[in-house]
């Protein structure tokens, strides 16, 4: 299998006025074409930093990322992201159809755009809602729109940041199955970041278990479950239960070795400050961007 995404010795340290915070330390992994890889880690372990570096929104302080062989510098052309917060990621002034067409405005003509959007909306079962506005839809439907938007873009890699963390359990099951279905039917390469162990086992072809902050890969597990999964029978199968336990154990190990350091750090510096450092980082990266583009 060829590697669609390869991350090598990735590390990122946020600089703040009164110290530095290493969010990721020495992270290496690959995602093969057509694979669905889940990244699980304790909350605050640097998952969102990982996602932001892969999507080119921030530049890592060391290491390299490449997407089908091309080094990621700035936002790649063929990458789509589905964020957790669908209600803030859909454009409220655009209809469902126009939201899905949004990323295609640069590359496609009007008719092609419309056809592509209609097709993607059909994949997620929303053909009847094209003229509605996001706020007229339920949370689960809004996230379907976000997924359709990402799929319509035909990305080489679909990044998902805790995509189902903000919907109710029933909807979550539906969306998980939907993701598996479109991934199977369209051979999409997907990287899902989640903190939900069950979800990672249910969705993944592989699971990357991360340690607590700074994040590094504790284990890279192949999910030995049939491609066709079912919310009830898969979840009660022995393989599923065993794998879930293993991931949970690994997460705990990851936590305990880093626990002391993390605790000391937490006392020294509040989370809010790192959020600020990250914001500063993003705007710094943007400023750099601006400097290079102008």
């Amino acid at each position, binding site marked *: 299998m060829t590697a669609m995404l390869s991350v090598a010795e990735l590390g990122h340290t946020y600089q703040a006025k009164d110290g530095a915070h290493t969010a990721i330390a020495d992270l290496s992994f690959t995602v093969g074409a057509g694979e669905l890889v889940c990244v699980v880690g304790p909350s605050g372990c640097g998952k969102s930093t990982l996602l932001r570096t892969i*999507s*080119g*929104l921030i530049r890592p302080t060391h290491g390299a990322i490449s997407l089908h062989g091309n080094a990621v510098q700035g*936002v790649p*052309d063929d*990458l*789509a*992201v589905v*964020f957790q*917060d669908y*209600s*803030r*990621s859909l*454009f*409220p*002034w655009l209809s469902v159809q126009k939201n899905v067409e*949004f*990323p295609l*405005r*640069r590359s496609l003509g009007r008719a092609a755009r419309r056809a592509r959007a209609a097709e993607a909306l059909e994949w997620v079962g929303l053909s009847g809602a094209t003229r509605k*506005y996001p*706020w007229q839809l339920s949370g689960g439907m809004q996230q379907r729109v976000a997924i359709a*938007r990402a799929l319509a*873009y035909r990305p080489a890699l679909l990044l998902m940041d805790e995509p189902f963390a903000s919907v109710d359990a029933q909807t979550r099951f539906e969306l998980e199955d939907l993701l598996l279905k479109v991934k199977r039917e369209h051979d999409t390469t997907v990287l899902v970041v989640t903190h939900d162990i069950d979800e990672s086992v249910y969705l993944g072809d592989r699971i990357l278990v991360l340690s607590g902050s700074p994040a590094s890969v504790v284990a890279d597990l192949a999910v030995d479950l049939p491609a066709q999964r079912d919310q009830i029978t898969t979840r009660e199968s022995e393989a599923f239960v065993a794998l879930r336990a293993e991931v949970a154990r690994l997460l705990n190990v990851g936590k305990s070795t880093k626990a002391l350091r993390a605790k000391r750090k937490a006392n020294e510096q509040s989370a809010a400050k790192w959020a600020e450092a990250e914001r500063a980082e993003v705007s710094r990266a*943007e400023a750099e*961007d*601006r400097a290079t*583009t102008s």
Partner: protein
Amino acid sequence: MRALTRGLLGVAGFLVIWELFGRSGLVPAEYLPPPSVVGVELIGLLGDEAFLRDVVATVLALLIAVGLSIGIAVPLGLVLGSVPAVRHATRAVVEFLRPIPSVALIPLAILVLGVGPEMKISLAVYAAVWPILFNTIYALDELDPLLVETARVFGTGRVRVLFAVALPSALPFVLTGIRLAATTCLVVLVSVELLAGGSGGLGQFIMEARSGAGRMDLVLAGTVVAGVIGFAVNEGLERAQRRWVAWSSVTGGRS
């Protein structure tokens, strides 16, 4: 329909109180003519070409002033709102200029621009730029970073983010600014017409009715027309806002 009925009842109540007050003898009748008298004058005025020309002069100046204010304040707001360096550099000047009442600038404006319509329009624009400018800047501050990030990861360039994300997202605030600006424009226009004269308009009509024959009935008729124009402009813009940016009220003001 009920809301309309209530509104009409309110207006009727106001007219009745005014009528009773005007006829009570508490104030001399020539100072505060009752609405029945003013109404008759008003109907007469609506057939009077000179008066209609004054009304048109004010309305036209209002439209031009609002248009110019939008044309100046929105682009300026986009720049100030998205480039912090420019905003910091201009803060002191802006804070100095903003509180200056535009009527205080009349002498300067007459010197520089004469007494033609461009003078009153300039002063109206001066006053109307601020609400639009500040609402635009404020809206950009409130812009959800996730919307920008979403657009960015889908390969949207910086300039396009400004026009395809920041501007539509700011629209509800901008429209509110425009609504405030339009009312301000009308106030300034009528004031300047009244104080400086020279270029016609409702203010000048009111001034002349008062100073010549002391015809308070004409003064009040002119005032009523000014009020109706203000009401119509505000109502029209409110409707446009409800229609164009319905999404912002449903999403709880989030833009």
